[in-house]
């Protein structure tokens, strides 16, 4: 062992006996002359050898390792290094199935601990020598470096090319069946008797715990849901492992929490609108209350922006932390901290108290509803179905290191490529999808298109944000009157009047900018729907594909939007909660109607109705599959489904679908 190795890794407590290098396919003796039976070496020994024996200065390039930009890059680096060691030793592995994941994981964890110990020693020595700071933050940061994602590293080093492959058997997508819903309904019957305390494992108690999710993850809700889902998975032979069941349970918590919080926040917004004297803000808040915080249109006039426009009423630090869905622009939290006053604190406390009351009330409404067991059953069955991908975009957005450091990655070919800010979004998306085992069932084409679509979407978002900021800055110089009007317009204040918002200019300008540009854009979108002659001219390079003609899309033209949305949601409710459904002319129209509302996002503000609508569509698709042998039904896109329905419509099949 070199001195440098000792310096970095520390002195080993004792040298272990050498472990024979393992060639997995190497025969041991033959049938005629069997060698004396020896304990079969573990497959993972070569890994232990690699990580213990090699001199760190040559193989791990510690300085380079420490300079890697982030956790993911370090995982890539470690995985690539071990993979190359494996290649050098010519270790062949037939597959990942018989690999001792646990043992290898332990080795890697020990390896990480060893690196950490030596890093600490190194840092302390350097600090003593005055080379670097020995501050706690520095040490903490450095000591977090050796954390190893043991599963990721193992998968990559085991693969044939060094790229991540998904060796575990593909998890069958959970399916929606009537028996699952019925079983869940049974399991979710509350058994609290009047005058009695709620039993510990009563579903009511679990739901009550959800109101604090995710701020407080209680063991109650997790245990209860995990037990229930495990029970269902066993009885229905669903191939779900513990982690997947846990993910489903978390998603259910989130759904229930959203339902409860939406109701509470909607009520709070209505109350706020009553108190609000500034007409524009008042109306905007009322819109948001009507639409719900999750509705697609509300995304344009998001809750956080409305809150900002309302003059700081909702500037609660706790609220900001808890309400990531608000889409609060980055950097605002710092401004809040900077300008926080006791007056603000008092406002927020009042706000939070009322929100707590309303949340309790919403929870009581949920648990005392006649549909309690139904609602919970749909929430779980929906989560089972979605189990994989639903919130990927959001998680990607949160993890996007836009404008941050650069680094390097390995391409499929094994050659390193430099990651620059220009392509960082792409690599981040790709990394995310690679690491998400739920994407293992996608074809290569689907994966590629998913990565590209996510990259383009996130890039356009960022560009639009920057453009909006630039235009507002330009207006300040070129059209000061209009700029002042914008300030007045969205802050609900005359700019000449002193207001603390004016001392937080950057903070407010961003909110105003977004709010007015999105208000204008949303209103303009309405305008386009009514235009009798609006059509996009063809884009030269794309040709006719871009001719968007306003055929039959002006469906919202004569009625106020909210009334129309409410009417549509009510119509969906009526359809999906009906006891029976017939595939006839009317039935086909209803199916298409429900599908269209889902696609338009009009049900997003009502998670439970959305669950039921999605279940309704799945039931109908399953029914069509069973009745008509449409083998590729799952792959049908909207047009394909409609086409199929058209054929069915012609044959006038009438069949009752069991109640959902």
């Amino acid at each position, binding site marked *: 062992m070199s001195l440098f190795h000792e310096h970095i890794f520390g002195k080993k407590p004792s040298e272990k006996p050498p472990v024979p290098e393992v060639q997995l396919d190497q025969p041991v003796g033959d049938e005629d002359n069997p060698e004396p039976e020896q304990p079969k070496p573990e497959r993972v020994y070569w890994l232990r050898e690699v990580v213990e024996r090699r001199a760190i200065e040559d193989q791990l390039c510690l300085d380079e390792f420490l300079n890697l930009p982030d956790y993911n890059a370090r995982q890539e680096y470690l995985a690539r290094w071990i993979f190359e060691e494996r290649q050098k030793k010519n270790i062949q592995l037939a597959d990942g199935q018989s690999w001792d994941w646990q043992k290898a994981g332990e080795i890697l964890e020990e390896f990480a601990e060893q690196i950490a110990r030596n890093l600490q020693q190194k840092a302390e020595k350097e600090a003593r020598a005055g080379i670097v700071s020995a501050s706690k933050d520095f040490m903490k940061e450095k000591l977090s470096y050796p954390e190893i994602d043991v599963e990721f590293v193992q998968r990559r080093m085991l693969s044939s090319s060094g790229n991540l492959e998904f060796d575990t058997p593909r998890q069958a997508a959970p399916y929606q069946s009537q028996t699952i819903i019925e079983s869940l309904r049974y399991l979710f019957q509350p058994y609290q008797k009047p005058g009695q305390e709620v039993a510990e494992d009563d579903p009511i108690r679990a739901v009550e715990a959800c109101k604090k999710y995710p701020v407080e993850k209680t063991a109650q809700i997790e245990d209860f849901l995990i037990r229930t889902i495990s029970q269902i998975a066993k009885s229905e032979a669903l191939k779900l492992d513990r982690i997947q069941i846990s993910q489903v349970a978390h998603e259910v918590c989130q759904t229930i929490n959203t339902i409860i919080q939406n109701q509470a926040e909607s009520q709070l917004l209505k109350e706020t609108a009553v108190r609000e004297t500034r007409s524009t803000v008042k109306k905007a808040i009322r819109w948001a209350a009507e639409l719900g915080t999750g509705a697609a249109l509300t995304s*344009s006039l998001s809750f956080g922006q409305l809150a900002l426009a309302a003059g700081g009423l909702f500037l609660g630090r706790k609220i900001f932390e808890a309400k990531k869905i608000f889409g609060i622009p980055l950097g605002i939290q710092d401004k809040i901290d900077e300008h926080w006053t006791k007056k603000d604190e008092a406002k927020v406390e009042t706000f939070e108290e009322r929100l707590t009351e309303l949340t309790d009330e919403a929870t009581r409404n949920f648990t005392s509803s006649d549909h309690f067991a139904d609602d919970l059953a749909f929430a779980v069955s929906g989560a089972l179905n979605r189990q994989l991908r639903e919130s990927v975009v959001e998680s990607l957005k949160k993890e996007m290191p836009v404008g941050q450091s650069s680094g390097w990655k390995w391409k499929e070919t094994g050659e390193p490529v430099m990651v620059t800010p220009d392509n960082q979004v792409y690599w981040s998306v790709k990394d995310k999808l690679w690491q998400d085992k739920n994407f293992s069932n996608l074809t290569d084409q689907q994966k590629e298109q998913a990565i590209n679509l996510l*990259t383009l979407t996130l890039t356009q978002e960022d560009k639009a944000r920057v453009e909006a900021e630039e235009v507002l800055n330009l207006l300040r110089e070129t059209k000061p009157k209009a700029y002042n009007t914008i300030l007045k*317009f969205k802050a609900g204040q005359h700019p000449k009047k002193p207001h603390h918002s004016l001392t937080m200019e950057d903070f407010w300008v961003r909110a105003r900018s977004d709010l007015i540009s999105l*208000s204008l854009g949303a209103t*303009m979108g309405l305008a386009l729907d009514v235009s009798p002659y609006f059509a996009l001219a063809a884009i030269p390079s794309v040709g006719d594909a871009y001719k968007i003609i306003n055929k039959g899309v002006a469906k919202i033209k004569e009625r106020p939007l909210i009334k129309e949305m409410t009417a549509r949601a009510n119509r969906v409710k009526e359809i999906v909660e009906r006891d029976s459904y017939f595939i006839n002319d009317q039935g086909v129209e209803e199916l298409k109607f429900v599908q269209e509302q889902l696609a338009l996002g009009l049900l997003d503000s009502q998670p439970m109705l959305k669950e039921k609508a999605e279940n309704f569509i799945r039931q109908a698709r399953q029914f069509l599959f069973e009745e008509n042998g449409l083998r590729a039904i799952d792959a049908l896109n909207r047009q394909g489904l409609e086409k199929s329905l058209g054929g069915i419509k012609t044959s006038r099949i009438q069949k009752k679908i069991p109640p959902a």
Partner: protein
Amino acid sequence: MTDTIQQFVQELITSAGLEQAPEDIRKACAERLAITVHQKLGVMALKELNEQDLNNFEKLIDQDNAPESKAAWEFFNKRIPNFQKKVEATLQQLAQEFIQAAVNLRE
């Protein structure tokens, strides 16, 4: 999200050759792209409208419900010269950028 914008976004994804992306990702991206389109249109309007127009816009949306489509159309068509062409240009620019970037990613 209005029907026209929704349709535009769907066409955009299809024309970029990304229609085989998984349905849930397509849907999530379509929603986000629609918001981006709205924001771009709003920014275009910001450049075009003057102070008086903005005051009038305030009046337009100062009601209990969202403005009717017809009223919104008349508002913009009256105050933004060549309104339709400018909308088309905004959307086309976005589409061209999007498609070009999609092509670049495939290369």
